[in-house]
């Protein structure tokens, strides 16, 4: 018997191999490198080991320099690690000398080319026939324009922006080249009616036309600066293989003193209404409205040179300037704030650092680390939407005042000239987002238990994984009518017809008003700068990708379906009615007040979480004429995977709450029991259902007795052979600690018998006082209460200790750990503690349970249920809530689940312990302790190490599983699922099936055992449930009393236990515990090679005599037959997939 050669790597593990093969199928070339490094050969290479430094080294006399350095790191950083990390990061983003040479030579070539642009005859401005190939990068609306234009070689070509400043960073190195338009091409009156902007675009088109014929240029595209359609730029890349890494941006600019900045004051009008509308009659509203955005666009073109000069002067003063800007750029980029319209780009970041330096808020001698920190602190504490800042020392008399700026723009940061607002296009919401991010970052930085570096600079924060709910506006052309509806004509003119940017601020403030306290933060994606080839026309506004918005929910106010407004007679009532339209109604409340109110339809927690969707749909429709079909709301798409009942549309919170209430009642009744020989000291839950994290929360059932057999004496129900398997009733485990007393025997066996006696006694009393059907057994007591089954287990707190005691031959009492004691401790102590702790967490974070249930559903569906126990999975999710950096704690199941997948797939399980600081019991010293202990004995610790305050050294929940191979597979599958899900959730083009991430790939397994759905009790809750579900003798509802139903009878799990006991040595068995109808079998790699004959390793093998040796090989035919024999009645068919292995 042999594996086919192609499938058998020389020394590889079977699982490993299957992981990788799956990989290559699924995603081609993506991250296999890391996995490979884990193979046996290099298993020790990437591991942190305890360091041995000789004493001589440690205690030698320090030099003063070294002393200073050590002291500095001690006082400035939490540890020298952070400092070194930052240095490494800077090394990664800085441009290499080689790249610089490339840039310089390319710039030189292009400059020469530009100077050789031929002159063209003078033509009318609207005449573009002189361009043969290149198109004009400008949306010519309205079409008419006065003026003349001709091409002429540029007056000068100069480098501007980050490259000459030295703050240019990788990746996507872009170098800015300013081409000055000769003064006789433009006219001082051109500032009016976009004439200047059109000439600028034409000039660029002329340059493009010239460059098209050159071989020095690789690709050539148009784009526009920060999404501003009035400021097109020309993007050039060098030819050949360097093309991808370097972009040259060509800006056309007027001579610096072309227009007087005073002319472009934000309160002046430069676009005439009659021209813009094409109607000659002036608007009745008096003089034309000011066009501040247009003015600042034109003004911005005059100043790049001056800005560069200013920044260079600042840079020369402060040594750490460049590094600080680089860090800020990385920080902004990770938060998707540095690109697009109204962004906080690298240029504004440099200006901010310059502001801090010139206003002496920071000193020139500070390190990059300190400057960066101060910059974040400044952003967090300063509200530029209220109190703008200015870099101008003594602005001239024509410069606008700060209040002028505030009245025209939402965010104000004035440049050194005093005339230009650097943040003219930024919305107030973007600035709020920056503030929020900055204050979060400062907070993470101050927390010594946290890896600030990772959270601040290394973790990307895509919208979909950062915000609780996300929605997209598709069909952007609808915004055009929105502008009309919102009466935004003059603003539209100011933005030269860009209705997206025009409508955005108003939509945002509208939604902000409507969502009010339900959200912490409303953000929007920055409209990206489009790029298009020089030979095609510019993209229309409506062809842009959809706008995305993110909501950070406030769970405290999320629970109410009612929006309570002002009293009916207050003046604010009218405003309220105006906002909500017909939805506003007068309501009388219990306290007697009569107020305006809006009531949303939401009966369950799941629907209440989605009230923002209703609000957004309603407001957009009412005020902006945007129909709900254009709003693609991504907030609850994953919910239907964990929906308990189709009709009620609840994700299980309500059911879990009922279970907990029922348990509370039982526990109260247990406390009140009398006539027990020893009193009860505690009643504790030890089941996921009691902490809201059970994937399928138990639902009360009422049974129809016809479908069952009866036990003769107690009349308890029995499953009937031939009928479908009865409904699965989950036993909810409850641990009942009895008082410690001298009466307890000091002997393990005797304690077991006493516990059984307690079970019998408790059953008697419960039956007599409360008429609950009970069934005591040696290990537990089953109680049937209100349609739910509770499994009470009596515990004695000294029992684990008794189990550990051992008498040495010379009479010494030894304590030796053993499996039995560990298992008992796990059940009676650790699990109860975890249950109550996580129950508390659920009270703080209402969606904790739902995230756990999604996560466990996914683990089950991907067949990892046996490898990561429920408690460990819950702890992983708890980590997301307790240590949410770089985000805030999730408030919707969807974002929580995405972050769970991200955590699972990106955490460095090999080199770091995952610390879950439950109840914040761990101090900084404890953290170091845990980390040191981990590093010292990594090899002997579980692959997945989770430390909690009560379990710092062992990681009890992951002690046995997962194995290295399974963890690797889990990481791979999680990464793949995350990739698929994020793509689906962000892709607005069509709705897709999110369940794809919950369907396991079965092609990697060797044998598939298909089960008969009729005998799989949970099949109705499967990810893809069958259309017809047979009656299982139960319906929802509860009636007290009755007889004991069939509790905890699941043929599938019984079958799996038998399979694992019989064949666990040679194969792994995988199954989805939540209604899966397939058991997947994977042979272990060491199963097939013939073994020498030994009595100990004979199970399920057959003898083979070959030459003069007796060896054994697995008896595969018999094993496959056994699969169906052991599962008689349950197994439908056994499918060996022999294409992977041969017999």
């Amino acid at each position, binding site marked *: 018997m042999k594996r086919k050669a192609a499938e058998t790597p020389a020394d590889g593990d079977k699982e490993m191999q299957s992981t990788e093969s799956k990989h290559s199928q699924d995603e081609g070339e993506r991250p296999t490198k890391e996995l490979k490094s884990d193979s046996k050969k290099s298993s020790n290479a*990437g591991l*942190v080991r305890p*360091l041995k430094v000789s004493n001589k080294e440690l205690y030698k006399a320090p030099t003063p320099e070294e002393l200073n350095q*050590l002291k500095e*790191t001690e006082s400035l950083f939490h*540890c020298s690690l952070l400092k*070194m990390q930052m240095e*490494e*990061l800077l090394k*990664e983003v800085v441009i290499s000398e080689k790249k610089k040479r490339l840039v310089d030579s390319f710039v030189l070539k292009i400059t020469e080319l530009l100077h050789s642009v031929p002159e063209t005859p003078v033509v009318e401005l609207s005449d573009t026939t002189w361009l043969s190939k290149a198109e004009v990068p400008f949306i010519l609306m309205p079409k008419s324009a006065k003026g003349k234009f001709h091409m002429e070689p540029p007056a000068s070509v100069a480098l501007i922006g980050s490259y000459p400043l030295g703050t240019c960073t990788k*990746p996507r190195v872009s170098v800015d080249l300013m081409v000055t338009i000769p003064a006789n091409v433009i006219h001082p009156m051109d500032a009016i009616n976009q004439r200047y902007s059109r000439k600028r675009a034409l000039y660029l088109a002329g340059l493009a036309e010239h460059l098209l014929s050159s071989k020095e240029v690789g690709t050539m595209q148009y784009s526009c600066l920060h999404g501003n359609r009035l400021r097109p730029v020309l993007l050039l890349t060098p030819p050949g293989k360097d093309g991808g890494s370097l972009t040259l941006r060509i800006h056309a600019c007027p001579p610096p003193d072309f227009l007087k900045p005073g002319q472009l004051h934000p309160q002046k009008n430069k676009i005439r209404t009659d021209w813009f509308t094409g109607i000659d009659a002036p608007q009745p509203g008096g003089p034309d409205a000011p066009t501040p955005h247009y003015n600042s666009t034109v003004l911005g073109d005059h100043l790049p040179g001056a800005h560069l000069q200013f920044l260079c002067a600042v840079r020369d003063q402060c040594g750490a300037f460049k590094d600080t800007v680089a860090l800020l750029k990385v920080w902004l*980029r990770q938060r998707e704030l540095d690109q697009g319209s109204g962004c906080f780009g690298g240029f504004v970041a440099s200006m901010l650092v310059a502001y801090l330096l010139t206003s002496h808020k920071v000193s020139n001698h500070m390190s990059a680390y300190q400057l960066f920190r101060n910059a974040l602190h400044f952003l967090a504490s300063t509200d530029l939407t209220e109190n703008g800042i200015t870099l101008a020392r003594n602005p001239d008399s024509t410069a606008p005042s700060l209040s002028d700026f505030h009245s025209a723009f939402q965010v104000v940061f004035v440049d050194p000239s005093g005339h230009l607002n650097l943040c003219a296009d930024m919305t107030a919401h973007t600035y709020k987002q920056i503030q929020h991010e900055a204050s979060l970052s400062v907070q993470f930085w101050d927390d010594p238990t946290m890896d600030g570096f990772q959270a601040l600079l*290394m973790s990307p924060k895509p919208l979909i994984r950062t915000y609780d709910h996300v929605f997209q506006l598709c069909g952007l052309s609808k915004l055009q009518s929105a502008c009309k509806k919102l009466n935004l004509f003059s603003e539209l003119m100011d933005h030269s017809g860009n209705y997206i940017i025009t409508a955005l601020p108003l939509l945002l403030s509208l939604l902000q008003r409507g969502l009010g306290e339900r959200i912490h933060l409303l953000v929007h994606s920055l409209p990206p700068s489009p790029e298009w080839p020089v030979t095609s026309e510019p993209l229309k506004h409506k062809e842009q990708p959809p706008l995305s918005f993110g909501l950070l929910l406030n769970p405290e106010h999320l629970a109410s379906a009612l929006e309570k407004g002002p009293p009916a007679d207050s003046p604010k009532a009218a405003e309220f009615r105006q906002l909500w339209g017909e939805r506003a109604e007068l309501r009388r409340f219990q306290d007697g007040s009569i107020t305006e109110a809006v009531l949303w339809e939401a009966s369950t927690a799941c629907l209440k979480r989605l009230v923002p969707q209703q609000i957004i749909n309603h407001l957009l429709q009412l005020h902006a004429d945007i129909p709900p079909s254009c709003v693609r709301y991504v907030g609850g798409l994953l919910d239907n995977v964990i929906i308990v009942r189709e009709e009620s549309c609840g994700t299980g919170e309500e059911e879990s709450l009922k279970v907990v209430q029922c348990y509370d009642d039982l526990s109260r009744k247990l406390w009140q029991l009398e006539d027990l020989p020893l009193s009860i000291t505690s009643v504790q839950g030890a089941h996921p259902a009691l902490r809201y994290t059970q994937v399928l929360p138990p639902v009360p059932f009422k049974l129809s007795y016809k479908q069952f*057999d009866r*036990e003769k004496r*107690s009349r308890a129900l*029995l499953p009937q*052979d031939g009928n479908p398997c009865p409904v699965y009733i989950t036993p909810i485990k409850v641990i009942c600690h009895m008082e410690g007393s001298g009466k307890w025997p000091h002997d393990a*066996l*005797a304690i*077991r*018998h*006493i516990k*059984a*006696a307690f079970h*019998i006694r408790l059953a*008697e009393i419960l039956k007599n006082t409360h008429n609950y059907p009970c069934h005591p*057994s*040696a290990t537990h007591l089953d109680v049937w209460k209100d349609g739910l089954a509770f499994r009470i287990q009596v515990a004695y707190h000294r029992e684990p200790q008794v189990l550990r005691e051992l008498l040495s*031959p010379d*009479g010494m*009492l*030894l304590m030796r750990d053993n499996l039995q004691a560990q298992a008992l401790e796990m059940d009676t102590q650790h699990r109860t503690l975890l249950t109550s702790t996580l129950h508390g967490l659920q009270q703080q974070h209402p969606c904790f349970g739902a995230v756990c249930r999604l996560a466990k559903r996914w683990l089950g569906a991907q067949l990892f249920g046996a490898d990561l126990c429920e408690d460990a999975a819950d702890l992983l999710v708890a980590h997301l809530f307790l240590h949410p950096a770089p985000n805030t704690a999730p408030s919707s199941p969807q974002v929580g689940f995405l972050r769970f997948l991200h955590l699972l797939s990106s955490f460095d399980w090999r080199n770091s312990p995952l610390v879950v600081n439950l109840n914040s019991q761990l101090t900084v010293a404890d953290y170091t302790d845990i980390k040191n202990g981990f590093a010292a004995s990594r090899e002997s610790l579980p692959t997945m190490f989770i430390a909690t305050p009560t379990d710092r050294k062992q990681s009890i929940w992951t002690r046995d599983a997962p194995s290295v191979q399974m963890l690797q597979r889990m990481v791979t599958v999680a990464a793949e699922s995350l990739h698929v899900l994020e793509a689906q959730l962000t892709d607005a083009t069509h709705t897709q099936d999110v369940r794809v991430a919950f369907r396991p790939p079965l092609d990697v397994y060797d044998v598939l055992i298909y089960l008969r759905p009729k005998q799989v009790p949970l099949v109705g809750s499967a990810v893809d449930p069958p259309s017809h579900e047979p009656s299982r003798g139960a319906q929802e509802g509860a009636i007290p009393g009755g007889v004991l139903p069939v509790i905890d009878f699941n043929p599938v799990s*019984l*079958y799996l236990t038998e399979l694992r*006991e*019989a064949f*666990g040595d040679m194969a792994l068995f995988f199954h989805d515990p939540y209604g899966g109808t397939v058991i997947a079998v994977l042979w272990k790699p060491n199963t097939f090679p013939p073994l020498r*004959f*030994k*009595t100990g390793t004979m*199970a399920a093998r*057959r*003898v083979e*005599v070959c030459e*003069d*040796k*007796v060896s054994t090989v697995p*008896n595969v*035919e*018999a094993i496959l*037959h*056994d699969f169906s*024999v*052991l*599962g*008689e*009645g*349950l*197994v439908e068919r056994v499918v060996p997939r022999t294409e992977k292995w041969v017999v």
Partner: protein
Amino acid sequence: MTCIKMWDDNWSWTPLGHGVCVSLKHIRNASVICDDFAPPVIDIKFTQNSPAAHQLLVKEHKVRVEKTASRPLDRTLFVLNIPPYCTEDVLNRLFVQFGPIESVELKDKPSNPEPAEPKLSKHFTPKQKQGFSVGYIVYTKPSGVTAAKAHPQNVPLIVSTEEHPVKTGLQKWIHQYSRSLVPPDVLQQAVDSFMNDYDQRKEEEAERKKKEAEEQEEDEEGWVKVTKGAKGAKARPHSEAADKKALEKEGKKTKRKELVNFYSWQHRQSQREHIAELRKKFEEDKQKIALLRAQRKFRPY
């Protein structure tokens, strides 16, 4: 429990009277030859129609070290690789054809017969593993063993027949479930009988202790009878934990007496320690960074 190795790692099937061993070399050869002999194999099928069969390996029971009454060497048949659906009853039924059987014992793996412990009721015995097992079949006469070994391989034993169906799968689990519903009074009886037994044993022990203590006491004339005493019966009950605690206490005491930063050398020492600590941390961090750099962990995107 000490586990005595009963079998050689390779089960040597030494035929009697095969070759005369003269030299060491010969002996070695002989052992190689031994492996030529296939172990006696009996096929076992679940039903007559089963497409595949498992192989039972049978052999007379042989132990070098220990002899026990429950497994007499000449009459015991040792069976390997018994499939999970074969219970002791089934095995009895299958092997009775070779001769009358005295007892059948199933084990997870080859092991010594367990010493008789206080008999536990079946409700309290932990569940047996349902995997492949080994069996010891004791025949009343040695001829049973030889007959079994002589059974031809191509005549398979059938586990489940028309007359004696063996339940597996769903039927078995339903049966198991109904068996698990033990009436409380039966359970109570088991508990009571065990606890009575336990109390009795405890009493006896207490009696014995008391007697020993009495013997240790002085008699009227002030004499103490010196005896060897029972193992483990020391005057002071001591445990590992208590010993450790005492040691710790001692350590703390000496530490408390120490003066810190009293002499100038102590001060110097602590400063030196501080710098060494910082250096060590620095070195550790450097190592971590080197590692992360190797893994390309500093690429922000």
